[in-house]
């Protein structure tokens, strides 16, 4: 697809090879003055994009239904982006020029060059977060979508390039390629031209990217595969927070690494607080499952849901579920071995002491949504952080992308950190 001077390949690259497209695009980029717009101008452009998305620009009609589109719009808000940047980069002036950080030491932050993003199937908007942060600090970006995915990126680029010259420049610095996951030539062509590789996806997708040849200096940022949980005190959580917790489960159909699969709930079945929690949580999951559209399940996903349900019941657990395959809450005394917990399937494990649940924390843990009393929160998070948890958001914030992510800084890895020793001041 080519539009408004933006050289994009947002269609399956069947006619010309992906490598050829990338080579031509990179050659065209070299001719441009890529330093022409700095961080403040780029920040302003993203802020305008955020406004356009919130105002529902007609070009984005196809995105309205997409999980996370509204969150992406608020993510791109200028003040929000700046706050994220400042978490990692105290001296943002260093994005423009050398900035003195010690008496005789200055630092300058320079874009790395070409950042290649492999977007996750079903949650492609997650990749838009990394694209925005990378582009904000001046990198060129290549975004790879599966040929089976809807192209959610090009409509955003259309809006961006219509905003102003800065937006047009950022869009022109973005190449969208679509090719099949088995197209090894396409993957290789991207990887060989990457200064940073960022991969979103499951185990197979991540390992595919890791195994590709790349320049020796290439930085790898791997987002996933991870599992997430929630730890809740049934006695202190409000009905509103329970509804937001349900949203965390339902929103990406648990396809996101931040989606909780296991809920550890302090309380005892048969006691008021716990039973109230379970009733309200079930109602919230049921109503939100109806409200939030989801992808059409394929046979293997449906089979997995039925298998998970059977495994829970055969092992002594209880189910709350709809009549079909929309949602499942499994009440179990401990996580049932083999249960995948995908497509709105969550296991609820009652507990009374934190000591009883540490052993059930997954080794590949990312997010732990917490709703605990103040003292418990401090005690719990200190220990859980050592067990691998990367973030402790509140209910409703589980899927809010933020930096650091997966336990690592992000923006700073899109930059080269350059130091300069300054001459001694004249005596």
């Amino acid at each position, binding site marked *: 697809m080519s539009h408004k001077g933006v050289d994009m390949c947002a269609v399956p690259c069947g006619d010309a090879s992906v490598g050829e497209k990338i080579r031509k695009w990179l050659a065209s980029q070299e001719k441009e003055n890529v330093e022409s717009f700095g961080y403040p101008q780029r920040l302003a452009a993203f802020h305008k994009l955020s406004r356009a998305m919130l105002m529902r620009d007609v070009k984005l009609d196809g995105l309205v239904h997409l999980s996370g589109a509204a969150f992406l719009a608020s993510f791109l808000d200028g003040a929000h982006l700046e706050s994220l940047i400042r978490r990692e980069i105290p001296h943002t002036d260093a994005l423009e020029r050398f900035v003195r950080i010690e008496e005789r030491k200055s630092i300058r932050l320079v874009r790395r060059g070409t950042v290649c993003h492999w977007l*996750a*199937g*079903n*949650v492609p908007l*997650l990749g838009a977060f990394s694209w925005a942060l990378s582009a904000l600090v001046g990198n060129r970006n290549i975004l790879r979508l599966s040929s089976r995915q809807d192209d959610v990126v090009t409509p955003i680029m259309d809006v961006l390039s219509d905003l102003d010259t800065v937006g047009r420049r950022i869009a022109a610095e973005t190449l969208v390629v679509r090719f099949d996951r088995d197209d090894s030539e396409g993957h290789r062509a991207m990887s060989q031209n990457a200064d940073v590789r960022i991969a*979103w*996806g*499951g*185990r*197979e997708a991540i390992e595919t990217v890791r195994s590709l040849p790349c320049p020796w200096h290439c930085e790898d940022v791997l*987002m*996933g*595969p*991870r*599992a*997430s*949980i929630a730890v809740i005190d049934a006695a202190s959580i409000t009905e509103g927070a329970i509804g937001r917790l349900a949203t965390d489960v339902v929103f*990406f159909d*648990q*396809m*996101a*690494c931040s*989606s909780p*699969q296991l809920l550890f709930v302090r309380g005892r079945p048969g006691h008021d607080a716990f039973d109230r929690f379970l009733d309200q949580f079930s109602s919230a999951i049921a109503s939100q499952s109806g409200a939030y559209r989801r992808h*059409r*399940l*394929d*046979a*293997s*996903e*449906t*089979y*997995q849901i*039925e*298998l998970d349900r*059977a*495994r829970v*019941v*055969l*092992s*002594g657990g*209880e*189910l709350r579920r709809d*009549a*079909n*395959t929309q949602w499942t809450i499994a009440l179990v005394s401990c*996580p049932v071995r*083999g249960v*995948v*917990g*995908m497509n709105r399937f969550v296991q609820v494990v009652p507990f009374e002491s934190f000591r009883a649940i540490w*052993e*059930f*924390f*997954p*080794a*590949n*843990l990312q997010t732990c949504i917490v709703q605990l009393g103040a003292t418990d929160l401090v005690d719990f998070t200190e220990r859980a952080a050592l*067990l*691998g948890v990367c973030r402790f958001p509140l209910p409703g914030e589980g899927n809010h992308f933020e930096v650091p992510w997966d336990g690592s800084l992000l923006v700073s890895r899109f930059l080269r950190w350059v130091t300069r020793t300054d001459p001694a001041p004249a005596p």
Partner: protein
Amino acid sequence: MIPGVPSPFLADTRPYALVPPRKKAHLLESLIQVQEFHAVRCGPYGRLLSEWRRRCPSPSEVSDLPYLPVTVFKDGVLRSASDDAMQLNSSATTSDRSSMVFADRETRIRQTTSANAILRDFVGYERRPYLVFDVEATVRGGAAMSARGAAILGLAHLSSEIYFVMRQEGERIRIDRAALRRAIDAVSGRPFLAYGFTHVLYSAHQELREDGPWSWTAHPGSYVLHSGGWKRLQAIAVDKSRFNAIIGGVWGLADRNVIDFYGVIEQAGIPYPDCEEGLKHPPYWADVVIRASDSLDPVDEGGMGLIQLMNCLPLGGPNHSVLTEDLGELVVRDGCRCGRRGVGFRFMGRAPRAEIRGCSDVAQRG
């Protein structure tokens, strides 16, 4: 006879003779008896049945009855019979685990009666020489039996004599020309029955073709049966018509004499041979429900989805109603031109494994 579980077989009734309303009445009652039997003997199954009843207390259709996904038979032991029941093991193709299902003596008798009745409806009642494209060791399972072994023995009751025509050579099994020659000499122009796992049968016949000219015309009333799935042949781009041409070509048999039948170890005793119209039919003591791939609702004619299989035979464990990972198409509810009554379905193959989606992962034990 087990108390509370009468024989599912009706006197003087052919397997596919019952009209749908009569079949439903017979099957629903029989299946409920079987599930009650398992519920009191197999604790985990009893829990599953209780959970199901909360949602569906009064089943009025066979499709209202509970099922177990076949994978749970790989997870652990689900048994209603005593410890001396024979264990049947599936071939572990897509995972490194095989299913464990149990068949006590009564179940094995039922399975044999069932398989005989079904297969005779396709190949006739007379006993014939039986050529097995496998090695004899496959059926020597002791306390456990493989799916291949069970399938071979399932046909043995239709035979007058049995000839194994392959031999073990290292890791491979290959055609044993001397054994085959002896078998053919013994058959001596009579109609025979042959069976092999689909990929084994194919490789054996390829070997026969490659090793030199082979000219021996079978009696036109002979049948070559096979089962076990097409996965390995699809990988080398061999479809059903090419397969039939190769097998039929070796023996000079028409396509219709090469019969593919579908079956799973969890439903041993119920082979599903292709009829003349290319469809598969359950006998009156079994049924098939095709469930929509997304909602699991039973589909209408023309609909595709996951195959649920059920039958009244198993007393060794609660494998009488299973949701498979296979896809099928419900072609007719009744009225197949082959004359067999009831559901006619087409087997579409194994459901593709879920594409990896998103950056989520299965929680891994720490």
